[in-house]
């Protein structure tokens, strides 16, 4: 292999790629803008919808309201987002709830046997439709109002009986979040960055892998390339490095964009709803993420190019490579287990191991032996893919676009030799 040739071919691939709108959109614009903007739009949208929901009135029917609790009745009548409807029978109210014309039925009743010992006690039954958000919210509102009233009522009754407030404060649960704002930020980063990095590296490799193989065939430039004096190995190496480069670039750009947008967009939005997050990364997390991005890109590039090299057109290529993309996403589900760190078993699962390694690094956890295992596993996968690619490229009819663009047909006919063909032309070393 001649590295000078590889460099010339690699530059040609990159130059062409950056003039192709689809590649620029998928590998640069989407990583930089899509997910940060999408996050902002989603969060803002959720807040807007939540605000709208808060302002929506809850239509409620009260039955048998207790006379000895006028304050509670006043509260219900005057609460801005609760609209009390005229009294009707319980059955009619339930029917109206079922068809969405009423949100909740609140029935006051005498307390049970034990509760009877307390003067003015009552129990409340709330009927609502759990399948309807508005009805569910009405139930929550009524419950909150009654809870609040009970607290105040018990407080005043206790005071009348001479029981001080402090004497009633027994067995209270007080929760305190000991996480710092940085730790909360790391939690969120650890959930998002591994997912986005794997996604974007795979997406970054996707179009170039097809463009540099099936695309060449579709444009009829494949034969042109086969007649240049560079060796086949140089040609394939240049293409492979090009696909991996775009994958790495897409991953790194995306992680940078997500990281910056979390700090600049999400942190202020979360602060508005009372959650404090501070997004910082341990210094060592950056090289870990870059190494992971490189390993993943080398793996995805090899796997995608092998399949795409069978395709006769860009469309065929998309159909063949898409399953790799989705398969790549399955293992990273493991990376979403926030209480899990890298284990020897997870480190042996390609892609999942990289996702987990990144998440650990974001949380400041560096399990070096397991990280080394992760890299070894990924590099072994890359080596296996490259060996398969080398074997596949020995079949010259593949180079000429045979097998109906199907890897499975190739595997059946050539690798498994199902048809028992032993012809002179069956396996030809590419010159």
């Amino acid at each position, binding site marked *: 292999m001649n590295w000078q*040739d590889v460099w*010339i*071919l690699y530059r*040609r691939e990159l*130059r*062409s790629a950056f*003039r*192709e709108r689809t590649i620029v959109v998928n590998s640069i614009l989407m990583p930089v803008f899509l997910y940060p903007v999408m996050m902002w739009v989603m969060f803002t949208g959720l807040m807007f919808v939540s605000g709208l929901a808060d302002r929506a009135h809850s239509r409620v029917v009260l039955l048998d309201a207790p006379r000895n609790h006028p304050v509670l009745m006043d509260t219900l009548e005057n609460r801005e987002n609760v609209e009390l409807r005229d009294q009707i029978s319980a059955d009619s109210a339930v029917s109206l709830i079922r068809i969405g014309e009423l949100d909740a039925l609140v029935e006051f009743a005498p307390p049970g046997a034990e509760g009877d010992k307390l003067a003015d006690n009552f129990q409340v039954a709330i009927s609502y439709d759990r399948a309807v958000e508005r009805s569910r919210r009405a139930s929550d509102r009524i419950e909150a109002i009654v809870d609040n009233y009970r607290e105040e009522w018990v407080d005043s009754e206790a005071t009348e009986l001479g029981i001080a407030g402090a004497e009633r404060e027994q067995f209270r649960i007080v929760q305190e979040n000991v996480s710092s704002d940085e730790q909360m930020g790391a939690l969120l980063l650890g959930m998002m960055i591994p997912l986005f990095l794997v996604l974007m590296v795979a997406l970054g490799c996707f179009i170039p892998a097809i463009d540099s193989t099936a695309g060449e065939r579709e*444009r*009829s*430039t494949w*034969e*042109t390339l*086969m*007649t*240049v*004096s*560079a*060796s086949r190995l140089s040609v394939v190496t240049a293409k492979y490095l090009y696909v991996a480069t775009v994958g790495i670039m897409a991953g790194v750009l995306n992680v940078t964009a997500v990281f910056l947008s979390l700090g600049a967009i999400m942190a202020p939005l979360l602060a508005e709803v009372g959650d404090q997050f501070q997004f910082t990364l341990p210094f060592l997390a950056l090289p870990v993420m870059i190494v992971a991005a490189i390993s993943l890109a080398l793996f995805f590039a090899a796997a995608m190019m092998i399949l795409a090299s069978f395709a006769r057109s860009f469309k065929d290529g998309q159909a063949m490579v898409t399953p790799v993309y989705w398969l790549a996403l399955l293992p990273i589900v493991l990376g979403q287990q926030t209480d899990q760190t890298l284990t020897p078993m997870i480190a042996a699962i390609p892609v999942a191991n990289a996702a987990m390694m990144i998440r650990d690094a974001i949380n400041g956890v560096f399990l070096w032996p397991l990280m080394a295992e992760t890299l070894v596993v990924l590099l072994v996968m890359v080596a296996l893919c490259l060996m398969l690619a080398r074997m596949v490229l020995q079949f*010259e*009819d593949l*180079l*000429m676009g045979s097998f109906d663009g199907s890897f499975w047909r190739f595997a059946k006919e050539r690798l498994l030799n199902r048809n028992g*063909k032993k*012809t*002179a*032309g*069956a396996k*030809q*070393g*590419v*010159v």
Partner: protein
Amino acid sequence: MENAMVRVEGLQKSFWDESRGEVRAVDGIDFDCRPGEIFGLLGANGAGKTTTLRMLATILKPTGGRASLNGHDVLAEPEAVRRSLGFFSASTALYPRLTGRETLEFFARINQYPPDRVAERVDSLIDRFGIAEYANARVEKLSSGMKQKISIARTIAHDPPILIFDEPTVGLDVMAAIEMQRVVGELRDEGKTIIFSTHIMSEAEKLCDRIGIIHRGRILALGTLDEHRQATGQHYLEDIFVHYVAATGAGGGAAAAIGAPGPGESGQ
């Protein structure tokens, strides 16, 4: 032939076809070509012309026989063969997203033209083919005539001694085809060794110094046009072609009956 730039001896290529079994696309052909000569391969579609030329260009590997270009064996030194060769065919398209200038630079560099002389070479090609006006436009924006000029220029970008033109005028209009024939003639005059495949009789008649008639993977006859006329008693190449093919159809080993050349022989 002592000074042959291209030598082909008993070249064979077999393919496996699901419905037909083993197919001999090229069945032991022999020919050679001299510098400053246009050697024509004349045959109908499917005769084995493209397969033969692809083997010479090292795109396909022969299943039998030998071939060498500029002294380099196609099996042993494929990269050296390709360095000595410019290959043009209807299926060798240009990179649409490169400009004409970038295309020429790329092909000159990747085919080992001396790096310090690439710019000069590209400028001279741009002048020669009159493409200065659109040399910096992307190929995808150009008309088919403009692309054709750039395509020929990229074939000779590294100044190879041997050129292969595989049905270069297919799909071209009359004026473009004439322009292509003119350029091929010029290249011959510059001393290039040219292999020109076609199924258009008039084109072969007009351009080729020697013509090999190929049918079903075998060369039926090889020689100058005059030699073919003498051998068959026919004047027009079309009639000569039909004569040879008909003789094959009559059975009895057509190649032997018309005296097809053995390895290293130049004609009948």
